[in-house]
């Protein structure tokens, strides 16, 4: 083991990453204890993906275009945002277990372990089968990119993985910030999960369908538009229907950093509150 004073920020980060991977491995092993349940849950995830795909397929089979966006364009928006949310969910996890732990008072155990509270909270509800959810949107991204009629310059090509990465950070930050609410209202699990789901849903479609006012609100304030909508406008080479400055299309990394900072603060405030009230 490295001495503590050698650690520094990088060392701390590496140690937390190690702890994260270890807890994930434990979650895998735990899930394997209940084979029938794991099989059923995996089957459910697969079925959910298929049904989701069928639902989209049915809608788009009837729709030539949505609010002026072609099928390929809508699929690109859908795929990139869904991929970002799926990745965030696989990494940070949904927050339901956290709420139960807080309510039952089992969260105290989390606080006495010498591992970052956030790392533990993220792995509390780590569900191996959720990794499978990444596959479907990834496929949609690839297929839609192939179908898009755009000039694949280096900038556009690079922007696609970059926007997914930033989108994942923004979505993950949203999950963490939402989870912080559970320290105040441990019973709000369902509501928090629904909000996460709502933002995932909102991000999937062209922001214009929400009208100018709500669309702008979602884009800038939520800030769901930075997950895929604004960078996608660049990739799709379209003018911004809301007339936002051109630079906003490349602002996602900045927004991601900001979101991560806000989420960290919210999380810390939540943990502090829990520590002081004990609940």
């Amino acid at each position, binding site marked *: 083991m490295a001495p503590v004073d050698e650690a520094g920020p990088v060392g701390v980060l590496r140690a937390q990453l190690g702890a994260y991977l270890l807890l994930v491995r434990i979650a895998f092993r735990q899930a394997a204890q209940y084979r029938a349940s794991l099989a059923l*849950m995996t089957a459910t995830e697969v079925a959910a993906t298929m049904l989701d795909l069928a639902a989209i397929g*049915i809608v788009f089979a009837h729709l030539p275009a949505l609010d002026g966006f072609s099928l390929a364009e809508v699929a690109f928006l859908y795929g990139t945002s869904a991929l970002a949310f799926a990745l965030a969910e696989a990494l940070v996890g949904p927050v339901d277990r956290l709420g139960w732990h807080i309510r039952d008072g089992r969260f105290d155990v989390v606080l006495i372990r010498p591992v970052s509270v956030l790392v533990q909270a993220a792995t509390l509800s780590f569900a191996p089968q959720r990794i499978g959810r990444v596959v479907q949107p990834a496929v949609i991204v690839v297929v839609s990119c192939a179908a898009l009629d755009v000039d694949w310059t280096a900038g556009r090509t690079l922007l696609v993985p970059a926007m997914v990465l930033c989108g994942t950070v923004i979505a993950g930050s949203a999950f963490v910030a939402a989870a912080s609410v559970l320290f105040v209202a441990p019973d709000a699990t369902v509501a928090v999960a629904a909000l996460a789901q709502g933002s995932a849903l909102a991000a999937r479609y062209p922001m214009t369908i929400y009208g100018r006012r709500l669309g702008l609100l979602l884009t800038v304030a939520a800030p769901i538009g930075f997950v895929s909508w604004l960078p996608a406008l660049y990739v799709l080479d379209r003018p911004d229907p809301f007339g936002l400055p051109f630079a906003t299309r490349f602002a996602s990394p900045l927004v991601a950093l900001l979101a991560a900072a806000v989420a960290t603060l919210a999380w810390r405030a939540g943990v502090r509150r829990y520590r002081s009230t004990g609940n």
Partner: protein
Amino acid sequence: MAVEATRARPSEVWAEARAWAAVAAATAKVNVAYRATVAASTLSNVIMTVLRGYLAIAVWEARPGLAGYDLDDAITFVVLGQALVTTFAVFGGMIDVPWRVESGAIVVDLARPFGFLRWWLARELGRAAVFFASRAVPAGVVGVALFGAQPPASRAAGAAFAVSLALALLVGFAIRYLVAMTVFWTTDVRGVLAASSLALTFFSGAVLPLTIFPGVFGSVARALPFAAVLQVPMDVYLRPAGGAGIGQLLAFQAGWAAALFTVSWLVTRVALRRLVTQGG
């Protein structure tokens, strides 16, 4: 005792009704005990309803007549349907049996002078009442204010809709109760819960109106009990031309409710017998 003689004994039915009401009222109180939770939940219901309303407009403006609904019908379907989603617990769960069996707290439930199935149903009524008032009504009001929605075709249709909602609650409860009761036979209910949540969400019509599905898949989806939870009440409300009559729709729900409650009753008997012979 003299007192005994002068006091009119309340009838058995009245006493039973009071007990039901007391259980439902206590559950309702629990569901409003955490103000922040209620506020967060109401807000998320409203947001989801608004988002889905806009989505419906985008889709149906591009393609009026999709799934047999014109734009107004589609908006009504999506707004009212989405507003009701949490009242009918379309995402599954909300019945505590698995946790109580796993923790052994089920002993307390069995020591009560109140039947097991009716205990959980009475609790469901209390929960649903709170969810209806605190989630469905605000979301519905915001949805109607933003998008406008069709009023019920007539006063009779409105009454039929109310009956349909009650039946939907019964069917939705029975499905989730049966799922919860699998804890008596499996070591880990999470798989069953996840599967049932998916089935309920998708085949109730909460994702898309079931009328959109073509062919055999559509026919099967519309015949399953899940359809009785959201799709059928919305059909009763909208009564699309050429669709089934209101009587037929209500009979469909009542039939599933009766069937599922019969099964629930049997499953309860078998599960409790298993519990009392084999221990927790």
